[in-house]
């Protein structure tokens, strides 16, 4: 239907979280004036949240970067694209000649399209000649990807969000969907109102806990013990699918030996969860005809996050609750394209579809396509890049669409690394904490200004179409990366992002059926072969592992990287809030600031009373690594001994508090367990001012 109120309308895919809502973006006078949900969006079915629908004003915020900036005599000056290109070419060439290609590293962005991420990885691998390429999924769901590949074979949800509607029971662990993934949160809520038996497992009593039948509050960092306890009860009480275990899995005997030590009483000791609740939760999941498990960063961002995901897979495997509607494993991917950025090979050790850089056949196929020799040595992961920069081994970085100085842990160390670089290129839509350390800042484009594809948390390729042009002389990321590569001597040979997708499909059997044309309005869930259908449900013909068998993992519980002591008696958990998104770069430039304008620390009434803290007081939060101040709010949704805050506001640099502890397999930071000391201070709470002189409805 054409609407006389708008100059133009396009259907695109939301650039906020990993749900992948399809949106209709309506433009008037060169600005987005309204966004409505696409009725045929498979993930959102005509719904969206306040971020996707309303938080679009950032796209024409007056502080968007509209021209390249170059560092000169201590400050930045406006520059032409020619000057910026010349500076980048001369510096990267100099560093590569002096220190070799491995002294240069790049970060692709899980906010960007598949085509952008693939171009970024080709820029590092082919143009520069190094495998030092990673993306921000490192700091969120890399443990999920690693563990699911180990246990089941493929790096993605085993089913789709529609499995929530088909399930009789579900477990949500370490996720708060009504805030972090609101459209899926609403879907889960509706399912509970229709009778879905929901078990929530989280140190905080999340909103969905009020709609579930049981809530478990384990101590932060003890998820492994909870999962082992559930598996123990399932095995002990015969809530298992013996035929499935025999025919489709391996390693069950080893697991059962380990499970002996995880009786509910022992689990209760470690986790603080009453033994009876462990029993009940196991029975709710085990006795359901179909049940799904949903998790988020509360599982992954731990020292043993990847192991916990393997333990989650154990429970699904022993119960045979996989490979059919209603029985799925659904990791809620954090960002719009956190699935795709890794699928596209923006990782230091793998090309597209997680094929290793030291796999000779794969490397040769890319060498043939790109016409250059490629390194077989895996590159640095994100935290290793910062370590190498501090050590002086890494000299230059190209950071695309990521504010590492606000979102990465151990911020002091990150800043030291950025300061230590000889040359830093930032490609972003705004100046950020990170761009302060840049030598060249390239003005890039927001999701509303580009074309390409995202892959959502259901493994679904979905089209992204531009509603607006980039502002000023800002360019699309596709244009920036391809033209910079050309200037550096390697022509990628693509006219449009559609050409890039065709190359990806040609070089990647699992995505060989993906093309912009076929993706169309309703998307394609990988794997998708050239002429075959896509795959809403995985593993219907066996697991993608040798022999088609899923692998049990006998991994014991181990203590987290940090623990409370006399000096730091409380445990800090971090996460997201409904109204804002990650570093807040976008949402803080919208009317969402009128709804929430500051960070706060959630604290239990007992702790607050002991510390003489009242709601609204400013408190100091100090960890072994740093200190912040923010407002305190008393709530009994958190357990005594724990505190919670988010990281959306640069006024409160939450990640200064987070230490260097990382996941043992994937180097994903342990954001979720930090010992802190909290005490009142007499200060005004820091807040983001509402959009000055910019009424929210213009």
């Amino acid at each position, binding site marked *: 239907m054409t609407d006389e109120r708008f100059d133009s309308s396009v259907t695109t895919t939301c650039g906020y979280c990993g749900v992948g809502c399809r949106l209709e973006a309506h433009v008037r006078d060169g600005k987005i004036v309204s966004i409505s949900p696409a009725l045929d969006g498979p993930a959102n079915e*005509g719904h969206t949240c306040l971020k996707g*629908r309303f938080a679009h004003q950032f796209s024409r915020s007056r502080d968007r970067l509209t021209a390249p900036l170059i560092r000169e005599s201590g400050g930045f000056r406006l520059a032409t694209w020619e000057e910026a290109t010349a500076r980048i070419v001369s510096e990267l060439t100099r560093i590569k000649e002096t220190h070799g290609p491995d002294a240069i590293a790049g970060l692709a962005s899980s906010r960007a399209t598949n085509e952008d991420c693939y171009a970024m990885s080709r820029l590092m691998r082919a143009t520069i000649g190094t495998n030092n390429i990673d993306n921000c999924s490192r700091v969120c769901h890399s443990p999920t990807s690693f563990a699911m590949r180990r246990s089941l074979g493929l790096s993605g949800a085993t089913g789709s969000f529609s499995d929530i509607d088909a399930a009789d029971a579900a477990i949500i662990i370490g996720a708060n969907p009504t805030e972090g993934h609101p459209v899926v949160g609403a879907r889960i809520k509706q399912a509970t109102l229709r009778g879905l038996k929901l078990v929530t497992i989280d140190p905080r009593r999340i909103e969905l806990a009020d709609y579930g039948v049981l809530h478990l509050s384990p101590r932060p960092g003890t998820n492994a013990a909870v999962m082992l306890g559930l598996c123990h009860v399932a095995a002990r009480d015969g809530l298992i699918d013996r035929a499935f275990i025999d025919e489709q899995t391996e390693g069950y005997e080893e697991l059962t030996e380990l499970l002996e030590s995880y009786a509910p009483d022992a689990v209760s000791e470690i986790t603080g969860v009453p033994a009876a609740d462990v029993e009940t939760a196991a029975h709710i999941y085990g006795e359901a005809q179909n049940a799904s498990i949903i998790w988020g960063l509360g599982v992954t961002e731990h020292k043993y996050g990847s192991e916990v995901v393997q333990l989650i897979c154990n429970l699904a495997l022993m119960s045979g609750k996989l490979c059919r509607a209603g029985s799925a494993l659904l990791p809620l991917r954090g960002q719009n394209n956190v699935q795709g950025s890794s699928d596209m090979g923006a990782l230091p050790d793998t090309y597209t579809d997680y094929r290793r850089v030291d796999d000779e056949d794969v490397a040769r196929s890319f060498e043939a396509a790109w016409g250059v020799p490629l390194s077989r040595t895996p590159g640095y992961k994100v935290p290793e890049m910062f370590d190498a920069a501090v050590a002086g081994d890494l000299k230059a970085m190209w950071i695309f669409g990521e504010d590492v100085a606000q979102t990465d842990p151990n911020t002091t160390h990150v800043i030291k690394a950025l300061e230590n670089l000889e040359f830093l290129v930032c490609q972003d839509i705004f100046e950020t904490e990170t761009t302060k350390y840049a030598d060249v800042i390239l003005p890039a484009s927001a999701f509303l200004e580009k074309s390409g594809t995202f892959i959502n948390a259901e493994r679904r390729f979905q089209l992204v179409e531009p509603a607006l042009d980039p502002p000023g002389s800002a360019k699309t990321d596709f244009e920036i990366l391809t033209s910079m590569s050309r200037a550096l001597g390697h022509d990628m040979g693509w006219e449009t992002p559609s050409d890039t997708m065709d190359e990806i499909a040609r070089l990647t059997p699992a995505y060989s059926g993906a093309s912009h044309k076929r993706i169309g309005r309703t998307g394609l869930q990988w794997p998708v072969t050239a002429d075959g259908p896509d795959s809403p449900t995985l593993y219907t013909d066996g697991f993608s592992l040798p022999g088609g068998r899923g692998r049990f993992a006998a991994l014991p519980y181990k203590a987290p990287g940090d623990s409370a002591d006399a000096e730091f008696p409380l445990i800090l958990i971090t996460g997201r809030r409904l109204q804002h998104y990650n570093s807040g770069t976008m949402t803080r430039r919208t009317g969402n600031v009128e709804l929430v304008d500051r960070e706060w620390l959630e604290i239990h009434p007992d702790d607050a009373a002991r510390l003489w803290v009242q709601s609204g007081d400013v408190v100091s939060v100090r960890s072994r690594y740093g200190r912040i101040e923010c407002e305190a709010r008393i709530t009994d949704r958190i357990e005594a001994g724990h505190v919670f805050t988010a990281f959306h506001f640069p006024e409160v640099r939450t990640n200064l508090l987070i230490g260097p502890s990382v996941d043992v397999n994937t180097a994903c930071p342990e954001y979720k367990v930090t010992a802190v000391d909290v005490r009142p201070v007499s200060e005004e709470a820091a807040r983001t001012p509402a959009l000055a002189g910019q009424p929210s*409805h213009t």
Partner: protein
Amino acid sequence: MEVTVDGRAVEVEPETTILSAIRAAGANVPTLCFDERQAPFGACRVCLVGVEGARAPLPACTTPCRDGMVIDTQDETSRRVATAIVELVLSELPVAPEPHTELATIARSLDVGTPRWPGVTHTVDHDTRHPYLAFQHELCISCGRCVRACDEIQGAFALTATGRGFAANISAGLDKGFRDSACVSCGACADTCPTDAITEMTLLPL
């Protein structure tokens, strides 16, 4: 089972509503309180159709099909009643709804011009306290779509129907407004509203 819509036979599953059968047959009947994202409500009676053997017109959105049912979307009584309903609804509004709204679209399709019944209209009452969502209470026709969107799609239960008869309207958080209610600002209410009684601040007429 099989039903006939305007002389054309269609195969439908049991439990299919007459409205779904009509759409499956490629025919159409106007609806006002219906939104495919919500459970059928059957409040407005704009989707009335004739059914062979029935004593009176039946609402298409809530009536399940029966095998062999013969449905007439052009039934004269049904169209006359539906047209009168839309005219009565319009007669309560102080201004005609904006051309893009569903109510205006239906009025055009039924050829309802300026209502023939002058009289009391709703008092203009705007609430623009929320950064994104605005109430224009005078345009509310009490179809209940916003309340159901809030309950059945988002699950926030922030909106409720208030008042009776001519004073019937909608309210967020017992009249405290969206901001101080349980509203999570998802906008599902504005998206479904057929008259812009709830709309986006950016789309308010200047």
